[in-house]
């Protein structure tokens, strides 16, 4: 009992360090990728290839003077960034980083905790994420901040619905809310992305919106709102806001990878597992296979982080009416259609085939009726 507790405590500490470390280096990657896309050099002063840049940034944030505006609400002004950071960190508890580790004859899952409502837990924390921005933006007593905060709150709740309905279609297929079970059912290359490509696209778009990333970064759009909800912030409080954004990005990448791309599953994993256990013995071989799985998962996470950054330097920002139209008039109906198709295909003997047939029927109906409608309109 105490042994498992110790291991679990170690895992929690590792997850904490991992999410913070990855978040810190995301800032570096963002700069490097931005530099690459814009054809310039990027950070290259701090350490070899600028690899110590995140440390330099953190040091700068620590030493900057921090002032609270006289008209601001002092208590809420400090609580705001704290809540933003806390909610960002909380959801990493349920991410299944890997399969099990075999230590002294006991299988210990590489995960903070495996609750049977895992995915709902993440979803609940996402809905809590509104408060960090809402509290901070209101407490600054700044017009730009308030507008940024209200935009953020409105945008987050709008995209939460489409995200939730897409989540439902994943749960219909797996029949479980535990992320570990969902991942376990995508063994090998039996990934959910092949069963519901539309759901995957909706989910990625909604994650972009939930993280307030471009093209959905209306809450901090610099050409209208100065810096949005964190206009009045400086020093480490600003640091917490910026950092929470990167932690959120890491966690949503991890969730996307585990819901749709099978997390630590990769083709040929059974062969690798049996090969390693055969060569290196039961315990060591199993653990090595698990570590390989973790590496595959981290690779997938980094791929999505890269996609997030790629999108940032490719797409321009939406206008607010476009953003709302997209959430309510495109994402919502599309996710409902996706749910119905996935549910109907689940009843059939060949879910994969029937999914694509359903999507094809929907596309035919939609584009067909649109063409007919347009023809009628042009005749009139």
């Amino acid at each position: 009992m105490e042994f498992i507790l110790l291991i679990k405590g170690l895992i929690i500490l590792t997850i904490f360090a991992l999410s913070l470390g990855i978040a810190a280096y995301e800032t570096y990657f963002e700069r490097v990728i931005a530099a690459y896309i814009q054809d310039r050099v990027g950070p290259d002063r701090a350490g070899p290839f600028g690899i110590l840049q995140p440390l330099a940034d953190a040091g700068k944030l620590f030493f900057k003077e921090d002032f609270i505006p006289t008209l601001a609400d002092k208590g809420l002004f400090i609580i705001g960034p704290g809540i933003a950071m806390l909610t960002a960190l909380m959801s990493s508890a349920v991410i299944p980083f890997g399969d099990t580790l075999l230590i002294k004859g006991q299988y210990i899952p590489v995960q903070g905790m495996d609750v049977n409502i895992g995915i709902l837990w993440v979803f609940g924390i996402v809905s809590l994420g509104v408060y960090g921005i809402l509290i901070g933006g209101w407490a600054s007593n700044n017009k730009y901040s308030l507008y940024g905060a209200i935009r953020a709150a409105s945008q987050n709740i709008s995209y939460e619905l489409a995200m939730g309905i897409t989540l439902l279609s994943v749960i219909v297929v797996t029949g479980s809310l535990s992320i570990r079970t969902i991942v376990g059912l995508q063994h090998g290359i039996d990934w959910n992305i092949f069963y519901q490509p539309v759901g995957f696209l909706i989910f990625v778009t909604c994650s972009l919106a939930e993280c307030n990333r471009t093209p959905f970064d209306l809450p901090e759009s610099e050409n209208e709102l100065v810096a949005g909800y964190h206009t009045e912030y400086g020093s480490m409080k600003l640091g917490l806001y910026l950092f929470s954004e990167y932690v959120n990005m890491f966690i949503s990448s991890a969730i996307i990878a585990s819901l749709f791309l099978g997390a630590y599953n990769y083709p040929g994993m059974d062969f690798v597992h049996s090969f390693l256990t055969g060569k290196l013995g039961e315990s060591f071989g199993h653990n090595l296979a698990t570590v390989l799985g973790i590496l595959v998962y981290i690779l997938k996470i980094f791929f999505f982080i890269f996609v997030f950054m790629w999108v940032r330097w490719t797409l321009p920002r939406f206008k607010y009416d476009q953003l709302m139209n997209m959430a309510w008039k495109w994402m919502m109906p599309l996710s409902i259609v996706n749910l119905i198709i996935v549910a109907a295909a689940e009843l059939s003997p060949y879910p994969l085939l029937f999914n694509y047939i359903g999507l094809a029927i929907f596309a035919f109906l939609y584009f067909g009726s649109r063409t007919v409608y347009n023809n009628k309109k042009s005749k009139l």
Partner: protein
Amino acid sequence: MVSQFGFVLLFMIAGIFLVLLVLGIARILRPSRPNPEKNAIYESGEETEGTAHVSFNLRFYIVALIFILFDVELVLLFPWASVFGDKALFDDTKGVWAIYAGIEMFIFVFVLALGLVYAWKKGHLDWIKPSQEETNFKSPVPKELYKDINEKYA
């Protein structure tokens, strides 16, 4: 189960501790020399005018209102989703279960979609765009060009 959620609590406590630690270290390290200029609210370099706590567009409120109702429906759909694909029950009832649950949920989702269509048709989901006014300025660029572009990307 409580022990699993105990780790959530541990996580929460560790998170709070981390945030406090970071803010505490920053407090020790950073200088603090406030003056009235620094502590003024930033308003693009101008003197601050009035309070920021103004009343904003009612549309945000309506969106939040619509959101709550869909959120409740969403929560009610989760238990359904977790039992819908139950293979054992499917075989026991020779598929009757799945069709039954499917039809039930189809009605429920249909009602949900009906609400969405209502809000859509009533224009609660439309965002107000500022109206464009014609100016007297004579541009060398013909107006049709602008019109074409506006129609293309409308």
